[in-house]
């Protein structure tokens, strides 16, 4: 009975505080541009070789951090494998098993062992890169803390998708030979006139896989980060403390949802890579 009374008192006090906040005037109006968070300015200027600019910018630093985190985790875990896993080892083992069973094992029919390293590598890289994007790091303008993910950059995701694209055709050609692989794109029962058209359509769809694989990851991370930025900065736009309190609660929910999205996108990237490579290895007759 006493506890209920206390909870009720807290609720009333909170509501009164919110009502007072609602009528307080806000602070100074701030200019806010969501997409400014995603602009890349060179942090360390380096000379460019021909058309290739070698300057170090935010995206490059995030890629380095991802690589470093992955390398350090892998190094620590491989030095010290115990029969009874510690918490850290348990997490890594679970992720490894997820990549081995649910991604490669569930999708690829043959040659699992030789393609597992690439697909697991892509999975871990995208996962760590997405998750690091949700940690505030001091690489925004003037060394402020800000959110950015290497995968919220089309060039990084396009490079990853190109790896899958190249490995898909490499796997197919190595297994079936060039002629056999291209012939396997269309069913052999198709009439010759239709065959060429189907080959053309299939070739176009192969290119569009590259586009969809890269744009999916890029747009997901960009959309998530811009929604987060809008929620975090909406208080500045509304100029109202009540809106600020409500929106900060909303931004926490969005943040948790983004963690989910980061994991799901890594899973989808890896599993689609496995589907494409597996499809090139085992062409249907």
């Amino acid at each position: 009975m006493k506890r209920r009374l206390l909870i009720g008192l807290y609720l009333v006090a909170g509501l009164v505080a919110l009502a007072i906040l609602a009528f307080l005037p806000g602070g100074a109006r701030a200019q806010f541009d969501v997409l400014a968070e995603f602009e890349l300015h060179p942090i360390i200027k380096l000379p460019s070789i021909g058309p290739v600019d070698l300057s170090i910018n935010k995206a490059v630093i995030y890629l380095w951090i991802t690589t470093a985190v992955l390398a350090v985790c892998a190094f620590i875990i491989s030095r010290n494998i115990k029969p009874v896993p510690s918490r850290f080892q348990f997490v890594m083992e679970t992720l490894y098993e997820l990549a081995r069973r649910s991604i490669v094992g569930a999708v690829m029919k043959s040659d699992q062992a030789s393609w597992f390293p690439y697909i697991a590598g892509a999975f871990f890289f995208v996962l760590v890169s997405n998750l690091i994007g949700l940690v505030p790091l001091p690489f925004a303008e003037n060394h402020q803390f800000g959110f950015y993910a290497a995968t919220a950059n089309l060039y990084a995701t396009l490079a990853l998708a190109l790896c899958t694209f190249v490995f898909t055709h490499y796997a197919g050609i190595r297994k079936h030979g060039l002629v056999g692989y291209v012939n396997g794109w269309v069913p052999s029962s198709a009439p010759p006139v239709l065959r060429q058209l189907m080959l053309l359509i299939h070739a176009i769809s192969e290119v569009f896989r590259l586009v969809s694989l890269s744009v999916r990851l890029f747009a997901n991370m960009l959309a998530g980060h811009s929604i987060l930025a809008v929620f975090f900065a909406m208080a500045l736009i509304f100029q109202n403390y009540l809106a600020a309190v409500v929106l900060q609660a909303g931004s926490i929910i969005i943040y948790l949802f983004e963690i989910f999205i980061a994991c799901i996108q890594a899973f989808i990237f890896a599993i689609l890579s496995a589907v494409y490579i597996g499809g090139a290895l085992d062409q249907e007759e």
Partner: protein
Amino acid sequence: MDAESAKLLAAGISMGVGSLGPAIGLGMLISKALESIARQPEVSGEIRTDMFIGIGVTEAVALYAFVIALILIFVA
């Protein structure tokens, strides 16, 4: 209507209309997947994997609309 407001309108419409189809598709996809998991719980792992592949492919359509909206606002 000047060009700037037309751009903003087009971006809003492309995002809104472009997310209609994927939303319907995702609803159908997930409801069917859940139905089949309820019917056959023993293959829920495989169905869930396929469901996530489908979600990834369907959701990409809405994200194309998002990218086009961004291009309309900031690049075009």
